[in-house]
């Protein structure tokens, strides 16, 4: 039975041509790019070619690119780097309630060290309000950080407009474009952004590498101090092979974008329609139009996501659940809660995120296999009544079983 991978927002397979390109930098050109002798020269020029490619991806100059070890590091560096640099001038940061933990947890940390953070809310489609954003700006606001596209729902924020507002108010603007990369052009000039984060493994490149665009003239306190790497902005011997992989992945992403977007959008729409028509009591999470073309996030009422995920996995279908039972309690998605979903509905969400290798047959198989899974799990749920095909009557205890 063929496996079907529908979790491209979690990670994407590395393209064979990317893996091939990297291979050289493990086996032949293993030199340290800081060395001036023969062993370092190949690595050094590879680094510089990769930087050119990433700069082309951002539509910026190569010196405006800092290589990082992940999207998470890029987000941390942008936020803390600006915050510490601008601390004397102001201590207020604006972000949204639906950011990735890389931004949210960093903001929580900054709050502990004397910064104030406004978390903008979103409406039921996961969209933020530009008026609320404008109203949140204060004289002491030093940074706005708003993601380009949400990883859970795919909702896309109006980055260009936010960039204009930021610029008009002389506030720096960072966007986490980890999920938007490869799906929209990331033109930092067009978008008015000062800082932008991307990650290799979401665009068919390797894990453990990313890049941060930092507009010329924007100074950041470094996060990793050390040698003269990255023009003194980020210490540490460069991960040459992974950086080469990132560069090539960016190049290919641009080359294939149009075709891929069309491909995944067609399949995604088919999947979404098929799933929602075949199963009662579902709800689409995310903006109906302003959404990543590859993402559909659906809540299945009365049941919890992990069960569906496990059942799908047993059939070889990889998806992701908004409900993460990782830290000792079954945490519902902070994104879905921010959109006003109840806890039950948040727990019952499944994210399908498509990619270049998916086919129409894949999608049709999922459409066919999903309803019996949902039915089976609903039969186990105390929230569901088979007789009425609706909510069961149940009284909750008010005590949580979680310590």
């Amino acid at each position, binding site marked *: 039975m063929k496996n079907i991978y529908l979790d491209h927002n979690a990670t994407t397979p590395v393209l064979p041509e990317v893996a091939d390109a990297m291979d050289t930098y493990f086996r032949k050109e293993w030199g340290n790019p800081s060395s001036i002798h023969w062993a370092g020269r190949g690595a050094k020029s590879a680094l510089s070619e990769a930087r050119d490619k990433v700069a082309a991806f951002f539509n910026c100059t190569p010196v405006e690119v800092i290589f990082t070890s992940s999207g998470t590091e890029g987000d941390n560096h942008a936020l803390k780097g600006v915050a510490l640099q601008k601390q004397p001038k102001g201590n207020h940061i604006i972000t949204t309630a639906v950011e990735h933990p890389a931004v949210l947890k960093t903001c929580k940390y900054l709050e502990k060290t004397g910064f104030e953070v406004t978390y903008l809310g979103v409406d039921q489609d996961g969209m933020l309000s530009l008026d609320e954003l404008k109203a949140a700006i204060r004289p002491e606001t030093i940074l706005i950080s708003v993601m380009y596209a949400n990883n859970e729902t795919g909702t896309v924020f109006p980055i260009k407009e936010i960039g204009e507002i930021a610029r008009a108010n002389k506030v720096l603007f960072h966007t986490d474009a980890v999920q938007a990369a490869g799906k929209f052009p990331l033109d930092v000039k067009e978008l008015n952004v000062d800082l932008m984060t991307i990650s290799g493994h979401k665009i068919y490149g390797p894990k453990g590498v990313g890049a941060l665009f930092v507009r010329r003239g924007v100074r950041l306190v470094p996060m990793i101090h050390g040698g003269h790497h990255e023009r003194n902005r980020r210490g540490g011997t460069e991960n040459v092979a992974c950086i080469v992989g990132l560069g090539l992945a960016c190049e290919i992403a641009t080359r294939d974008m149009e075709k891929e977007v069309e491909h995944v959008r067609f399949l995604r729409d088919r999947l979404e329609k098929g799933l929602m028509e075949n199963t009662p009591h579902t709800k689409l999470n995310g903006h109906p139009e302003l959404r990543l073309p590859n993402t559909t996030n659906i809540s299945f009422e009365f049941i919890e996501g992990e*069960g569906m995920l496990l059942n799908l996995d047993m059939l070889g279908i990889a998806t992701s659940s908004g409900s993460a039972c990782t830290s000792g309690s*079954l*945490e519902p998605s902070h994104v879905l809660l921010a959109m006003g979903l109840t806890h*039950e509905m948040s727990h019952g969400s499944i994210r399908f995120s498509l990619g270049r290798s998916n086919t129409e047959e894949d999608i049709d198989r999922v459409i066919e296999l999903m309803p019996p899974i949902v039915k089976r799990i609903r039969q186990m749920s105390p929230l569901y009544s088979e007789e009425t095909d609706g909510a069961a009557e*149940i009284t909750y*205890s008010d005590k949580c*079983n*979680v310590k």
Partner: protein
Amino acid sequence: MYSEKVMDHFTNPRNVGEVDEANGTGTVGNPECGDIMKLTIKVEDDKITDVKFKTFGCGAAIATSSMVTELVKGINLKEADEVSNATVAEALDGLPPVKMHCSNLAADALHAAIEDYKKKSEEK
């Protein structure tokens, strides 16, 4: 992530549903906590002659629910009182550390159902 036994109980859960003419019901958890479990039992002569569960929760929650019904079906109330969270987790060959809290649910629901039965019988 899960042991084979957990996956077995998750995939083929035993005793799903509600006992006809149950004389004890235990519902624990609520949507805010994440997991909800409803256990119904039929007690005859101090013995649990039938037990069924309905659970809203992750794989571990379903498996522990299923396991607890297997553990207590046919045993008397005193023995059932001694079934703890640890008993259930052990019977499943362990749970991933992050899921340990789920096993609290099953034993809690059992004890709530027994409590309910006792209260009802006293009321009679």
